[in-house]
């Protein structure tokens, strides 16, 4: 068992499923010889050939539509959007068709595809390469929206996503693609979708987040612990459908919640979690909910991007504000 990065875990999961199930194909721009611009599909074409790892012409509408067609005819396509910012031309096919074929045909035609989307900021990339646009998908019925935050979860959740009979949008937080290594066994053990992962138990405060902000939240929790404050950290992992039970249980215990995400605040997915708290946890809350998010602006070019992204400092001040409030 080797220690691998998150992106290596993605590659490992792809290879595992391609071996296991020959209907699995990988499709996207530069996924072949080049192994993807991030190397997520590195080496796969060598092993599985160009009939399983398929470069496409440069058109995201085409990638999405071909993928829908492949899935509808019994293949298990895993499409790659090269970057978050290039996913928009795919939305029509994903929303109107991938997410709907099952209900439209009462199950006659289904669309078991995975769309992998390298996601988020913090890597000093050019414009359109740093978007946190998960909210484009979280209001769409029929989709699963998944985001791992560790090599282990990247592997296990991607296996599940591929095996899932419905379309899954699989966001990969590129800022932590290579941030650290972790031992991950290539044992084909899938991790459950549709559940939140409690990464750290705590009793004073709940930090709820996903993707690359998981690391900032864990760091913030460490800092809080130095002051004797015990923060629970929850990785949402599947945004749609949301496992609110885990969050509710945590807040029942802690009475305080800070939600952290990269996307702009207004209309971001953090709102859904805060909304559920307002609906179902009001009597448990000892202080108002806080959101620490990207500002309601576009993520700026990289000279300023770190001033845009949530940071440990901003999480800490929100946490302290929350802790200072009384019910």
């Amino acid at each position, binding site marked *: 068992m080797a220690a691998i990065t998150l992106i290596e875990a993605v590659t490992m999961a792809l290879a595992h499923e391609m071996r296991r199930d020959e209907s699995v194909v990988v499709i996207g721009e530069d996924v072949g010889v080049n192994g993807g611009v991030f190397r997520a599909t590195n080496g796969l074409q060598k092993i599985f050939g160009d009939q399983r790892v398929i470069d496409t*012409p440069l058109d995201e509408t*085409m990638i999405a*539509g071909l993928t829908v067609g492949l899935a509808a005819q019994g293949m298990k396509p895993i499409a790659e959007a090269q970057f978050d910012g290039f996913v928009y031309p795919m939305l029509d096919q994903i929303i*109107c068709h991938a997410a709907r074929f*099952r209900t439209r045909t009462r*199950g006659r035609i*289904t669309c078991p595809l995975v769309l992998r989307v390298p996601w988020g900021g913090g890597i000093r990339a050019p414009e359109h390469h740093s978007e946190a646009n998960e909210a484009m998908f979280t209001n769409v019925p029929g989709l699963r929206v998944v985001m791992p935050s560790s090599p282990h979860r990247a592997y296990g959740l991607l296996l599940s996503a591929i095996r899932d009979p419905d379309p899954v949008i699989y966001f990969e937080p590129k800022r932590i693609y290579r941030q650290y290594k972790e031992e991950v066994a290539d044992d084909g053990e899938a991790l459950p979708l549709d559940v939140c992962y409690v990464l750290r138990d705590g009793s004073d405060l709940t930090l709820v987040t996903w993707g690359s902000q998981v690391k900032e939240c864990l760091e913030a929790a460490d800092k809080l612990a130095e002051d004797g404050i015990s923060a629970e950290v929850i990785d949402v992992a599947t945004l749609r459908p949301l496992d609110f039970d885990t969050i509710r249980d945590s807040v029942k215990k802690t009475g305080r919640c800070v939600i952290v995400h990269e996307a702009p605040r207004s209309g971001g997915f953090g709102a859904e979690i805060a909304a559920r708290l307002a609906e179902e946890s009001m009597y448990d809350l000892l202080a108002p909910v806080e959101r620490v998010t990207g500002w309601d602006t576009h993520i700026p070019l990289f000279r300023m991007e770190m001033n845009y992204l949530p940071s440990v400092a901003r999480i800490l001040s929100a946490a302290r504000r929350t802790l200072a409030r009384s019910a």
Partner: protein
Amino acid sequence: MSVVATFSIEYQRYLDPEGRLVEDDLPPFARDDEALVELYRHMSYTRSFDSKAVALQRTGKLGTYASCLGHEATHVGVASAMQYDDVMAVSYREIGAMLHRGVKPREILMYWGGDERGSDWSGPAHDFPICVPISTQCLHAAGSALAFKLRGEPRVAVAFCGDGGSSKADFYAALNAAGAYQLPLVLVVVNNQWAISVPRSAQTGAQTLAQKGIAGGLDCVQVDGNDLIAVRAATEYAIARARNGHGGSVIEAVTYRLSDHTTADDARRYRDEAEVKAAWEQEPMRRLRSYLSEKGLWSDSQEQAWKETCAKRVDEEVNAYLASEAPPLSDMFDYTYAEPPLDLVQQRAELLAGSKR
């Protein structure tokens, strides 16, 4: 300065509007008298059903419906050139093609009657359901064709789109994919001259819609879409080519939308009655009937009898449609995912409880 590439677009027609043969090399299928009569019967059945569907809408028994009046030769010509295992991807108008593939009229009515169960049909399970977002079905067909190619299956995917649809991103993407991957894909552009109120001339500066295939390196042809023999012949050729690994085609079938765009439209707002009248001179039923009559293969009494048969069959289907019970409310939840997640289970319970109150 040198010329590096040249292209030409052919126009194909066998029967003129009077039903006179204008080409000698009749394709084999058209030399099979019984088969040709059978195709005529299909066209006629399509028209029977179509006019009934419009009537149902007029009396409030159907939702908005898109008539296929005038498209019978194109629909039957294409569908009849396909094998069962081939995949068909339609827009909303290819009623004649769907019927030919075995979809039941009651199912088509259910769909337009606002009931998803209509798309869980008796036609081939692998065919795509009616597709409303224009030309998106072209890419489903291209993806299907890619699946066939990857699996080494000798199958072909056929997609229809309109003259309007030939402007859409997904149409170009499909033809580009077909060329890039050498896919067994046939794109049939049903040029019926109108996209709701937008005439063909406003849709593009291209002289023909067939030539759009040149952009993807495909085989391109324009056919008289009111001539069953031409449509079927061109489709047979394109399908054979595709099945044999020689790649994709664009077939432009030139026809005319004799009806309003849908029952929600009033075409008199934007087009001349004279144009419609002229188009009736070109319509596909009459010319094939003339041809068959001329050859002694079809008589007035046969016509009469067949029309009655059609009417009876259609009535049976309509009755079955009208008798269909409303789907259970839970259906709304139960096909969103393979297994409804917790939230949906709760919401389903909430709705069912509310509806019982």
